[in-house]
Structures are given as C-alpha cells and as structure tokens.
C-alpha cells in the first residue's frame, strides 16, 4: 500500500441547522489522482474548504498530513503543508504576465521587497519545464485561452511546492482536445509524486483520469472505489441513489415542418446549412467547439444575421435581424452561459421569468400588474417544478439545475414554436440533468420543437430524435439518433 499524504478522519461540519458533512473519512495517497464526486449540495465544496483550511471541521474530526496531526485553522497552514487549490475562477491576475502569475505566491511568501524580473522569468520557465509545457512568459494572462490559463494556474501551484493540487471543475469550459492535454499535465504531475484531487461533474473524464473515486451523497461518504470497477451507470447510481435509465427516442415520424433552413451561409461562421425541424421533434446539433454550431443557432435567433440563404417558420419566410424578430416568429433561445447571458442574477426569480413577456402582464394604464405577474410566475414555477424558497429570492441563490429551469421558464412564457437550447446540461449534476431531460421530452410531447446543442455523445443519442453533426462550419451528417452508438458518434465528430 502506498504512503498516505492526507488523511481526514470523522469530519463533520454543521452550518446553522444544516449538517453539510456527516462523519466523513477521506484519504489521498502520495502522487495519486483522486476524484471527488457528488451532486450539488452533497458536501464536496465543504470538504474541499476544510482540506484547504478555509473552514475548520467540527470538534472530533482529525486531519493528518504525512501521518502527523495538524491543526487546520488557517489556509496558510495548508499552503505550508503543500496543499494548493485551483478554484474554478483560477484566481489569476489577467493584467500580469505569465511569469509574474506563476511566481507570485513564492514572491509574496519570501517577503522580498524588491522585484527581480530576471529571477521571476527563470522561475517560470523552470516550473513549466517540470510539467513539459511552454508558454511565452512575457504574455499577459488576459491574452491566453482558458486552457492556457489553467496551465498557468497549475504552474503557480507547483511553484508553491504543491504536493496536492485540488482542481475544482477544471474541465467545465474546455474543449475535448484541451481536456486531453490537461489529462497529460495531470499525468506529468503524477510522475513528480504530486497528487491531484479532481472535482468534476463529467463522468467520462473521471473514469479516464482518476485511479480512485470518492463518492459523497447528502454529506455522507458513500464509498471509495477503484475507477476501473466503475461504469457511468454505476457512478450515477452511487451519487444519487437512483437509477437513471433512458429509453432511446424513436426516429421522428410526423411530417409537419416547423423550421426550415435552406442554404444558409455566413462568412467565417458556417456554409450552406440545410436543416429541417418538425413539430415536436428533438433535434441535436453536435460537433467540436468551434464547428460553427453556436454561430448557426445565433443566426436563427437573429443575433448573428446570415449572409445568404433562407429561414422559414411554419412555411413563412423570416429574416430575423434581432432577437425581437425571432421571438415574434416563435423562436426562443437559451444560451450556454446562463450566468452571463440568460439571467439577471441578482434579481428575483419571478422578475426573471416575466422578463420576456412584460407586455402581457401590463395593467390597463400600462403599468406592470402585480396580480398578473404573480399568476404568470406561479404557473411556470409549478409547471417546471422549480424549487425556490420564494419567488422573491434572487436567482443566484438557486442551484445550477434550478437556474437552468428558470431560464427555460422565461422562454417558455413566450409560447415558442421552436426552443433552442445551447448545452443545457453543462455544469449541472446528474439529478438536475435528469430533470432537464424530462422537461425537454415533455415539451416535445406538447408539440414544441427543440434544437439542442450538445458536446456529449450520450446526450445526443438518448435525448433526441435526430442528430446533426457539424464540422468546420458545415453539416457533415444527419442520423436517426437511436441508430447511433456512442463510439460511432464520437468517431464521427472527431473524424477518426
């Protein structure tokens, strides 16, 4: 048995009346790649905050590093023990160079009063060499891609003599290729005896990279498993305590066309796109990031007008040059980045839902009618079973899954014929995904046509009637989703 780097025994944490962690044991071996999974609210982030010293555990818990018991009151203690956390926001300084970002923690720690630029550069180059990457040390971090920024954050952790690097959802905004190179870096860390604790929702990645997986549910530890003995099915069962089995949707059989696109082109985005979406059909558009899929649906929603080609809704030609045109034609769009583009985060749930239909809730003197507003809000909260403490709670207090539902509610309120969903399940957990799938299926059954963009092969196969694959701005294939297998689809997307 390998040596233990970190051991937590009998850790509990109570916040007010909520027991966030309930006597959890947890351990990481030296140089291990370990994964921590669980649904939102299962206690993952509390556990990480205890490891990194932001929270201290309730009395009775013990934390040992190298078999030594340590008092874990302050985050500086955990830094001294070589524990580095890379938060989802990466905590980098966008205005500083790569070199300065990598060397900053060691500069602050040594307490030097003067800045030695040459030493900083050398330190950065040396650290990057350790994990076999090279970036221009003089570039500003604001000019780097997300994947490159992640490398900088990892280098900074290594430079601070990390023995355990904790990564919170590191792959949330990376493309498939970028994830591959991240995995390479993690393997390189492992060669240097640096352990990695990986927190993720993406079950495929977990299985590709981790040796062991710790599963949490409702603040309790479900167990520790070898990654090799897990399947996706088993893992989602362990996380939720529920079986999620989906039946594939049959090929679409009706013939009432709701949306038709003919030879749509836009320079630098996509070319000669033909697309037909029927009443109540779920159409999936998949492809690598940068294949033009988001740009295409933005064109349908009027926010990225095409150069050539035609768009028909129920046989009538439309030329949407703004979201207002598209909404009038019955097209709704739920963006991928719901935080930035989909919701007014600090506003109440109710106010967000009625944002698209303000006209409908006006009173006779053209003021907003409170009664009509609350009726509308109540209807959608019930229909989509959104869990909210009250309609006046700000959206940013909700969980990811519920936020997604609020966005969908907001767009359903306009009674759309076509609902476009861009990556609707990114960053939400298994159970929340399940409820989104249910909503999509119900909406389709009611006759709304759905266009869903997705990265995940499984999502396309199980939750759509028809799958289109895009690559380099063109549609390279149209399939009945139920006839595809994941491997086939994956190979087609990546053109293997």
């Amino acid at each position, binding site marked *: 048995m390998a040596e233990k780097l970190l051991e937590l025994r009998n850790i509990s944490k109570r916040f007010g009346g909520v027991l966030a962690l309930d006597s959890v044991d947890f351990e990481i071996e030296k140089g291990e790649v370990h994964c921590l999974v669980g649904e939102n609210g299962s206690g993952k982030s509390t556990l990480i905050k205890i490891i990194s010293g932001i929270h201290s555990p309730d009395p009775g818990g013990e934390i040992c590093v190298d078999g030594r018991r340590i008092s874990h009151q302050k985050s500086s203690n955990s830094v001294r023990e070589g524990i580095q956390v890379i938060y989802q926001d990466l*905590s980098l300084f966008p205005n500083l160079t790569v070199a300065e970002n990598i060397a900053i923690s060691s500069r*602050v720690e040594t307490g030097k009063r003067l*800045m030695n630029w040459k030493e900083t550069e050398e330190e950065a180059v040396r650290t990057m060499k350790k994990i076999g990457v090279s970036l*221009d040390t003089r*570039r500003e971090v604001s000019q780097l891609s997300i994947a490159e920024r992640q490398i900088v954050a990892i280098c900074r952790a290594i430079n601070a003599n990390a023995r355990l690097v904790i990564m919170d959802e590191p792959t949330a905004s990376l493309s498939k290729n970028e994830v591959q190179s991240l995995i390479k870096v993690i393997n390189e860390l492992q060669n240097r005896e640096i352990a990695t604790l990986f927190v993720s929702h993406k079950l495929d990645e977990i299985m590709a990279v981790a040796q062991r997986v710790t599963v949490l549910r409702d603040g309790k530890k479900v167990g520790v498993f070898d990654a090799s003995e897990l399947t996706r099915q088993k893992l989602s069962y362990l996380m939720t305590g529920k079986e999620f089995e989906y039946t594939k949707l049959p090929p679409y059989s009706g013939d009432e066309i709701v949306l038709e696109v003919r030879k749509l082109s836009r320079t630098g985005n996509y070319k000669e796109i033909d697309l037909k979406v029927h009443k109540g059909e779920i159409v999936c558009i998949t492809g690598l990031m940068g294949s*033009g899929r988001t740009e295409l649906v933005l064109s349908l929603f009027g926010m990225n007008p095409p150069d050539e080609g035609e768009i028909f809704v129920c046989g009538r030609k439309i030329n949407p040059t703004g979201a207002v045109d598209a909404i009038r034609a019955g097209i709704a769009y739920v963006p991928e980045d719901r935080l930035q583009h989909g919701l007014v985060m600090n506003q109440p749930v109710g106010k967000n839902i009625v944002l698209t239909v303000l006209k409908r809730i006006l009173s006779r003197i053209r003021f907003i009618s409170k009664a009509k507003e609350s009726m509308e809000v109540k209807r959608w909260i019930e229909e989509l079973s959104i869990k909210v403490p009250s309609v006046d709670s700000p959206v940013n207090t909700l969980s990811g899954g519920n936020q997604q539902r609020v966005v969908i509610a907001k767009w359903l309120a306009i009674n759309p014929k076509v609902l476009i969903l861009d990556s609707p399940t990114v960053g939400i957990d298994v159970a929340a995904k399940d409820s989104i799938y249910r909503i999509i299926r119900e909406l389709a059954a009611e006759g709304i046509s759905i266009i869903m963009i997705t990265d995940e092969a499984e999502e396309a196969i199980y939750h759509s009637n028809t799958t289109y694959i895009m690559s380099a701005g063109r549609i390279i294939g149209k399939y009945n989703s139920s006839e595809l297998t994941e491997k086939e689809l994956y190979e087609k997307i990546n053109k293997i």
Partner: protein
Amino acid sequence: MRRSTRSNSGLRKIFVKSEFYLLLVIVAVSLLFTIMKPSFLTFTNIYGMVESNSFLAIMAAGVLVVLISGGIDISFTAIATVAQYVMATIVIRWGGNMFLAFAIGGAVGIGLGLVNALLIYFLRTPSIIVTIATMNLFYGLLIFISGGTWIYGFPMWFMERNLVRFGDNPGITIPILVLVLSFILTWLILKYTALGRNIYAVGGNQEAARRVGISVLKTQLFVYCYMGFLAGVASTVQANMMLTVAPNALMGRELEVLAAVVLGGASLAGGTGSILGTILGFGLIIIVQNGLTLLGISSYWHKVFVGAIIVISVGITAYQRKLRERKGAIINVEE
C-alpha cells in the same frame, strides 16, 4: 502549447501598445502646431508649458497609482488645498526652509490620505463615494476654519524658484526637479518593488491577491497615502510658483487630471497603466491647450478639444476590443 515567434514579437508588441499611438498623435499634433505657429517648438515655450503644469502632473502620478490599484480618488485637490494652507500658515508664521515646506505639505497629504484609505477599507464602500465625501469634508472644514481668505507674504527664501541657472535660459527650477523626481519615484515603485507589483495584483484581481497572501489593507493604505503625499508636494510646488494660496486655485481640476491619466492607458477598472502612458496622456492634453493658446483660440474651446480627444481615444480602444472579440469567433469554414 502555442509559442509566439520570438524574433518579431518585441517589435509587434510596441505597435500594439496604446502608448505608441499616443506618441504618434503627439508628434502629429506638435508638427501641425509648429507649422501654424513656429514659436510652438521653442525651448522656452516647451519649458514654460511643462513647468506651469508641473503640479497637475505630479498629482497625475498619484492618480495613476490609485487607478492601478482598482480605486479612484476625487479628493486629492481638496487634500492639496488643505496641505497648502497648513504649509503656508506655518512657514509664514514660524519660518523654516524649502525642505521643511515640502515636508509639511507631504505630511498633511499623507495624513488625509490615511483617512481615505481607512474609510475605504473598513466601510467596504466604493472609493468614488468615499472620496467624494471626504473631498467635501476636507474642503468644507478648511473654508470654515480659514474663512476662505487668500494667503500672501511668503518669506524671501520661499520666493526663489531657480536652483541652477544656465545663462539667460531658465535653469533647473524647483517645480521641474520635483516633477522629475516624483515621476522617477513612482516608476521605480511600480516596476521594481514588491509593493508596486502588489498594487497591480490587487487592481487586477483583488480576491486572488487576498488568496495568495497579499495584504489588501496594506496596499490600499500605501496607495491613498502616496496619493495624499504627492498632492501635498504638488500643492507646495504650486504655492512656490504662484506665491499666493487661494482656496479655489486647485479645486475643480481633479477630473482634468483623471482624464489625462485615463487617456494615458490607465483603466478605471484597475490593473493597468504605466508612468510612460501618463506622461504621454498628460503631454497630449497640455500640448493641445498650449497650441490653441498660441493660435489665439478662446480658452472655452480648450475644454471642447480636450473632451473630444478623450471621446476619440476611448472610441478607438473600444473599436480595437470589438475587432479582437470578433476575431475570436472566426471559424475556418471548409470550402
């Protein structure tokens, strides 16, 4: 990982920087003024132009540091005015020397800057609100206590401005020397001290700065005290040039200074800006004002021109950002 070609990246960097464009504009504008009015490009004119604006430029260096840290200070002209009154009262009543005059000005500035820093840190209120409040507080108290009277009658030693003379030309004067020293000091602090780099870090991402163990309180204490210090020093320079102290000599010029620093590439969002940019931004504004004066254009138009320059420069920056963002979304469509 990507690697940019090193050979020409240095040169390319220069062209990308906004300082380069500012320099181009300054050269073009100066050329235009020289053609229309040859007396523009004379040593006496340029020297006079720099000297008469030196006190504003000294404060600009302080504003730069505050902006980089992610804050803003509106109260510095009020601080300067208070420092000027205290300094003048003391040296007229008890005498002293030039060094003491600057020390008093600087010390009063540091004290008032400290008030700003503590309020901003402990109230966790945006610095713009706090400094608007303290501007009124400092200035109001000053007028109440002093009765708003002008101060004259500085001692003889205070009236000497020249340190070194070269024949008939103006030599090195106190305003020029102090200006150069404060720019060099600010540059050294920003580029070569840990403190200066912490200021950039706090301005770039305050939460991340806290996480790596940088003390945000200490950084802010320094930033606002340094701003106060330079305001006090600048006010002493201004008194040295004018030989009178008036309550309204400096007030109302804070936005002008702020605009020059922003024109020089400092962002109101924090984290960016350099002393070179500030010199160029400030330089452009005083060159335009001076040129227009030489051409005999009414001073009311100066404000219009300064406003127009700022709008155009901000417009260009916004346009560049738009181009960059669009570039990111281009897909190589297969033909």
